[in-house]
């Protein structure tokens, strides 16, 4: 018997072309060993990890190469066996774009030799010790926010509901879908384990309606464990239904107040990939040293999902998937709505990289022309935060900090829905990002009105 939770209300959102079918034709490609690993020490929110290896050391697969700093933080592990060749600054995609970041560079030896299991201690039973084990296992939120899971589990209030997020609403990304299809039992076990750690009365696994195979697999796994705390939810295929606050609204009808986190109100959200990683750590003593990444887009020859060691150079991932097609113009880390356009393919895979889109010109926006705003308010219709982007735009161009605060600039989640629906092609989200930075710095907002040409 598997219980379903029915959806409540979701504000705004938009139906987008999913572009997920090409990357879900092949099973997840596993066992890939790149020639080198570039492991950033700061690949999670919070404090960067501290290296515990030195240049010249040999490391094994699963070995800790950097330990957790003061919370929030998490350890970093080698994804394959090899030699530490350098500890130096390399360009890595982080929270503020591609910037030089201290990395441990490992030249792999191709043997993929695993650290002996005896090194792993027995799994603890106390909740705080379990959280420390999760921190030492390098586990962070794999939905893209990469907040250290140990710190997210240390909630200030008791958890009412653990939401395991398998919505995966953003176009192109299919790593969670494929993981649910292939590793449903581990995900369900990991979800229930997290429910135990949180002492939560219920756990909802939420999956978007466009993933029937994933839902079938999860439902079968849930039926076999037969735990009354476990519920499933089929959520509508609408972007951004998988956003943390949006999912809380969708599943519970509650809204998380402005500027606060769901955890402060008893809702903890964990990505299905995180649940899987936790289960691997607990059951097989395998730390988080690899993740599933979708390599897709019209610009890559064989789109597919790859289980790749963290630190794999993106160029090697692309080569593994058959290389580039002619006409690729953009390389996006993430999906087409919130992803970051990479300058080149030299940067490494991080724990945050759920998808790499090699896009052809016809797949992405290349024309920058904007017409003036015609005040159609379609942006307000799709805004999941129920903001009025057309009014925010006017306030931003007038550098009116007061109006921006009243209109809720800080509640913009930068999902990009307004840009895509705008018939005037106004780059609203980028203007709002600029406005947020200027407001934080109490500066004049350097934003021009659209349609001035």
């Amino acid at each position, binding site marked *: 018997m598997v219980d379903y939770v029915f959806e409540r209300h979701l504000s705004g959102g938009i139906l987008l072309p999913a572009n997920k079918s090409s990357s879900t034709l092949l099973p997840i490609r596993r066992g890939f060993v790149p020639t080198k690993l570039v492991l950033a020490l700061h690949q999670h929110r919070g404090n960067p990890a501290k290296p515990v290896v030195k240049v010249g050391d040999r490391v094994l697969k699963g070995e800790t190469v950097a330990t957790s700093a003061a919370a929030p933080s998490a350890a970093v592990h080698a994804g394959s066996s090899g030699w530490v060749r350098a500890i130096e600054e390399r360009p890595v995609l982080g929270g503020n774009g591609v910037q030089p970041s201290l990395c441990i560079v490992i030249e792999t030896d191709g043997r993929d030799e695993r650290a002996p299991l005896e090194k792993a201690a027995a799994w603890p039973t106390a909740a705080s010790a379990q959280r420390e084990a999760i921190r030492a296992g390098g586990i962070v939120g794999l939905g893209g926010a990469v907040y250290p899971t140990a710190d997210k589990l240390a909630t200030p209030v008791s958890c009412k509901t653990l939401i395991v997020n398998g919505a995966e609403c953003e176009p192109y990304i299919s790593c969670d879908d494929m993981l649910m299809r292939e590793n449903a039992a581990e995900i369900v076990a990991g979800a229930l384990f997290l429910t135990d750690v949180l002492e939560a009365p219920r756990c909802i696994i939420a999956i978007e309606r466009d993933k029937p195979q994933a839902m079938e697999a999860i439902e079968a796994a849930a039926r076999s464990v037969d735990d009354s705390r476990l519920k499933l939810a089929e959520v509508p295929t609408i972007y951004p239904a998988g956003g943390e606050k949006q999912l809380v609204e969708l599943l519970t009808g509650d809204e998380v107040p402005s500027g606060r986190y769901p955890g402060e109100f008893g809702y903890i959200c964990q990505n299905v990939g995180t649940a899987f990683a936790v289960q691997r750590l607990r059951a097989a003593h395998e730390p988080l040293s690899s993740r599933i990444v979708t390599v897709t887009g019209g610009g890559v020859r064989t789109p597919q999902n790859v289980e790749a060691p963290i630190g794999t150079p993106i160029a090697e991932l692309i080569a593994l998937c058959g290389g580039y097609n002619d006409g690729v113009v953009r390389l996006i880390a993430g999906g087409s709505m919130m*992803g970051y356009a990479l300058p080149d393919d030299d940067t490494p895979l991080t724990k945050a990289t759920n998808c790499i889109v090699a896009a052809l010109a016809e797949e992405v926006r290349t024309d920058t022309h904007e*017409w003036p705003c*015609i005040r159609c308010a379609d942006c307000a219709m799709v805004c999941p935060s*129920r903001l*009025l982007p057309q009014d925010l735009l006017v306030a931003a161009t007038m550098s009116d900090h007061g109006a921006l605060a009243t209109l809720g600039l800080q509640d913009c989640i930068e999902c990009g829905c307004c840009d895509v629906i705008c018939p005037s092609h106004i780059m609203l989200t980028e203007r709002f990002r600029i406005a947020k930075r200027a407001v934080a710095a109490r500066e004049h907002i350097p934003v021009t009105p659209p349609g001035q040409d």
Partner: protein
Amino acid sequence: MRFDQPTAPHARPLVSVPIVMRRVLLALAPAALCHTWYFGPGLLVNFALTAVAALLTEAAVLRLRGRNTRYALRDGSALVTAALLSFALPPFVPFWIPLIGGAIAITLAKQLYGGLGKNLFNPAMVGYVFLIVSFPVEMTQWLPPRMGDLDYRPLSVAEHVGYVFTGGMPLGLDVDAVTRATPLDLVKEGLRTGRPFAEIRGNSLFGDFGGRGWEWVANFIALGGLYLLYAGTIRWHIPTTFLAGLLLPATVLYLIDPAGFASPGFHLFSGGTMLGAFFIATEPVSAAGTDRGRLIYGAGIGLLVYAIRTWGTYPDGVAFSVLLMNGAVPLINRYTRPRIYGQR
């Protein structure tokens, strides 16, 4: 290999301003054909002349303002203004009426406010009101619909176009002989003089609900409106409350006194009701911008249309009602902001 690095989102926009404008023009096409069938080539001639005037004045003012005309002239917005204005004009007017109307709509209502997206008032309706106030005689020269008046000698296309450009009429005819009052005029005048509504409707100009021909044009305009709703170009809020705001008082008063008030069906299928509900009031720039605000805005226009038709001096009131509610938009927007997610 190096790649371009614009900021997110990377997905292509789903529609564009020219596509929206093209959809509006497409939605009006069936009604234009129907109008031409019943009333002759007047609408098409008026559209051609308003469009020329609108595009020329738009180009001229953009030059004066030192703006690039490349995108502004191609966005289709001036053509939509021209099309809406030409639907509002009588089909039988001298050529300078549509020319002045198109020029006034674009300069006075649109470009003087800053061009596309800046107008506080609906440009087509500003052009229409300017004309009806300035040239009341020419603006009431309606032709009867095909088969609407058996004594009537229909004009050929050549005679019609000849009058528009030269003012010349065929031998033995003058303008008064070919033009007729509209059903709205007849109802207003009839009710004012105390004739019962049912008797007024006995005139051969009346059809099943509104005027013969007019009601079919209204049907096709509504069909175009449904297409715009389906395409997502307009949303349901304004048309729904516009029609409700008009039909509610119409129904109540008609039920109380069926002789003294026009029927709700007549209101629905007469004059500018359908054009106003689906094409004029939904013009986004000058309409309210929030969902709740649009409900209020539409209802206000509908109620005002009924009030002007019933108690005002003009037979129809769509243009005045839209402009009055345009003026209320900043206030409506201010008090109908949606509650932001997570705020109380």
